[in-house]
């Protein structure tokens, strides 16, 4: 009998936890105002006031509304639910108001937790959660806020999986007809993966009105318009995929210069090996690194034009140049650290920093990473065969077809494409502007050299980072490379690459 009572009590509690639909839409009246002391957190307040720790979103949303309405009384908005500071005054809604809010709250839409400015919100979706990326994004937010102070910016990031978690949420919201206002997208054919004719807004008019076609280099424009002959995103930055990084001290000590041809690579690698250094370090654990390095080998073996042809069907994958590229990659792998499958690119890069590895090929975010590690003894050069070629990838922002705050989103895209915005974003992120008119003085030595190359090299698209091919094709491409790294079977890899092209509908 007692047990039944306990069960009934629990069921009753469970039911009491469930919010009831209430009719009244409350004004911003605080039922209580509490000052934050040490060891307070939102869920604790929720538990205290509503008997339900789940109700913390109601407090956050209500407080932000109150802060919006009366900034003198509540000067601190809650931007991060996990972070409330000691000394803040937090507005607690009444139980009815809290229930009314919770009745409509959707955890996949973080923008519900923030107040709307007089001109609404701007919900920006990305996976830039750490380091220079987050700072660069904040730089652009500051510019936006000065221009449009009445708009509340909601930074709707989703971390984890190098963007896969974010993409999963985004795709769900797009299919559900409930998208954010703008989101991060690799420039190029990755847009295809979002069925843009249905889910995205073409940006051709924006390009015309902002003069972006004059500000971006023509090769980039070709990339941006690749799918469906429309612009689907505004690029904020350019990263370079084909960079060979080397440990300067080791090279000097051994009288070596970075290799410009494949034969030179062998010579340099042999010399490093004789000196007891791992000639080439890489990590293949995350599955994309091999694909990344191979696209640079492809470009370096085939040259810019034939490389481009691979992705349009003009160059067949059965071309002997591709065979040679696979052989070159195989040669490089023979000089690599044997445990690469247990390493990510940065944990393998530690070998280079520590002086036990000589060279690595990785995109130019490596520059920022070296800096964060306090390492300055690195040099860079184009990987063999790619002098004069810039394998580019670009982060852009797109606008969904039914963006809730369309004007705000358009304004955001204008900031992204503007000189001011790009100059605020790129030095922090460790990339160069997509525009050709940014001030070089704002950037460090490596980035300045990259800007020079960007202005004069032949620009080709990266496949490992969503530019050159559909996402489905890119994943098949990466799978083939994963198998090749283990097996070394050139013929099978070439056949697999050909098949991937056929499956994508580009090759016959």
């Amino acid at each position: 009998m007692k047990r039944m009572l306990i069960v009934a009590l629990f069921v009753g509690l469970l039911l009491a936890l469930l919010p009831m639909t209430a009719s009244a839409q409350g004004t911003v009246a605080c039922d209580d105002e509490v000052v934050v002391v040490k060891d307070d957190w939102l869920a604790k307040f929720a538990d205290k006031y509503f008997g339900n720790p789940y109700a913390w979103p109601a407090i956050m949303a209500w407080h932000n509304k109150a802060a919006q309405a009366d900034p003198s009384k509540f000067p601190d908005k809650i931007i991060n639910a996990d972070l409330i500071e000691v000394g803040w005054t937090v507005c607690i809604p009444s139980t009815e108001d809290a229930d009314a809010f919770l009745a409509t709250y959707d955890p996949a839409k973080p923008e519900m937790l923030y107040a709307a400015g007089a001109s609404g919100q701007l919900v920006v979706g990305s996976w830039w959660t750490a380091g220079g990326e987050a700072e660069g994004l904040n730089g652009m937010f500051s510019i936006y806020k000065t221009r449009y102070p009445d708009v509340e910016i909601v930074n709707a990031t989703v971390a984890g999986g190098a963007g896969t978690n974010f993409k999963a949420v985004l795709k769900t919201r797009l299919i559900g007809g409930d998208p954010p206002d703008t989101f991060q997208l690799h420039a190029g054919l990755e847009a295809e993966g979002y069925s843009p004719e249905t889910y995205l807004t073409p940006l051709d008019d924006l390009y015309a009105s902002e003069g972006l076609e004059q500000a971006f280099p023509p090769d980039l424009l070709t990339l941006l318009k690749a799918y469906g002959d429309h612009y689907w995103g505004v690029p904020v930055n350019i990263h370079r995929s084909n960079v060979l990084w080397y440990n300067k001290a080791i090279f000097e000590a051994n009288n070596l210069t970075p290799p410009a041809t494949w034969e030179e690579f062998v010579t340099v690698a042999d010399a490093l090996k004789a000196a007891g250094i791992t000639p080439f370090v890489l990590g293949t654990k995350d599955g994309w690194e091999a694909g990344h390095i191979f696209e640079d080998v492809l470009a370096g073996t085939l040259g810019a034009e034939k490389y481009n042809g691979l992705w349009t069907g003009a160059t067949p994958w059965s071309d002997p140049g591709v065979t040679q590229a696979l052989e070159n990659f195989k040669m490089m792998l023979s000089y690599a650290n044997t445990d690469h499958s247990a390493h990510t690119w940065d944990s393998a890069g530690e070998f280079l920093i520590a002086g036990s590895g000589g060279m690595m090929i990785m995109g130019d975010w490596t520059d920022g990473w070296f800096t964060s590690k306090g390492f300055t003894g690195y040099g860079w050069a184009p990987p063999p065969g790619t002098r004069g070629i810039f394998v580019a990838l670009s982060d852009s922002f797109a606008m969904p077809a039914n963006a809730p705050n369309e004007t705000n989103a358009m304004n955001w895209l204008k900031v992204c494409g503007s000189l001011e915005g790009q100059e605020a974003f790129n030095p922090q992120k460790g990339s160069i502007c997509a525009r050709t008119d940014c001030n070089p003085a704002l950037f460090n030595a490596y980035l300045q050299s990259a800007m020079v190359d960007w202005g004069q090299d032949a620009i080709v698209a990266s496949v490992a980072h969503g530019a050159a091919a559909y996402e489905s094709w890119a994943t098949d491409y990466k799978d083939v490379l994963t198998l090749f790294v283990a097996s070394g079977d050139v013929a099978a890899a070439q056949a697999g690459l050909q098949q991937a092209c056929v499956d994508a509908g580009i090759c016959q």
Partner: protein
Amino acid sequence: MTTKARVATGSRRPVTWQRLLLYVVLIAAAIFFLMPIYVLLVTGLKSFAEVSLNDMWNLPRGLHFDSFIKAWFGSQEEGFRGLNVNFLNSVYLTVPATLLSAMWGSINGYLLAKWKFKGSDILFPLLLFGMFIPYQSILIPLVQTLQKINFFGIKLYGSIFGLIVAHVVYGLPITTLIFRNYYANIPTELIEASRIDGANIFSIYRHILFPLSLPGFVVVMIWQFTSIWNDFLFAVTITSNPASQPITVGLNNLAGSYIVEWNVQMAGALIAALPTLLVYIFLGRFFMRGLLAGSLKG
């Protein structure tokens, strides 16, 4: 060899080499089973500078608890969330889901064991099949269904409520199985006797079987608590907002974050494993007793 003293014969157990070998093997096995926990603990207690793959077997030079603190609270500067929110989410998920699925399983098990009707013998394996399906097989339609259902206004997809629903529904087969076997072992005479006294389907459960169900509940709740707390696939599929994710996803994200601090990761793993570990350490013997009572023999 020694005889098993089922009857108290008070026989001597000579220390033979067989006996010694027995203990050696058991201890060696114990070392194998404890070795990973040693690594977890030792690494978690090290400072970041000390942590290295090469020295993983060395004891820490001094006890550093800051990796536990970092794993729990996260680090703003280094850009990763702590496990504290995830821990609470796991609690909000696991406790209700365990209780709900245990109750439901008990009722189903009772009905299928004692109130058979035509077709209940086909129904039972059909219900049971759900336990064995790979959950990957139903992920896409599950997500779509949860997106469409609102529970008192809160969308199931993306919330802990959605996870609770998924776990209760897919926990149905195992809880029903355990309880059905348990109640099957209760002699029908007990029920027959009460019928003569005028009991019906409801009162038999309330007055006779439910009070006897404690061992069954213990087994079911330990099993469900463990599998729900430790689940990853549903958690990562249904909740994508880091603020609502249970601790398994939080831990995996900790491991996958840009800066891998192994001591923090190991500390986080220990924190994540602690509740279920404690359940097993303190309630493990009830689990064994339940097993002996035939609950999981299927």
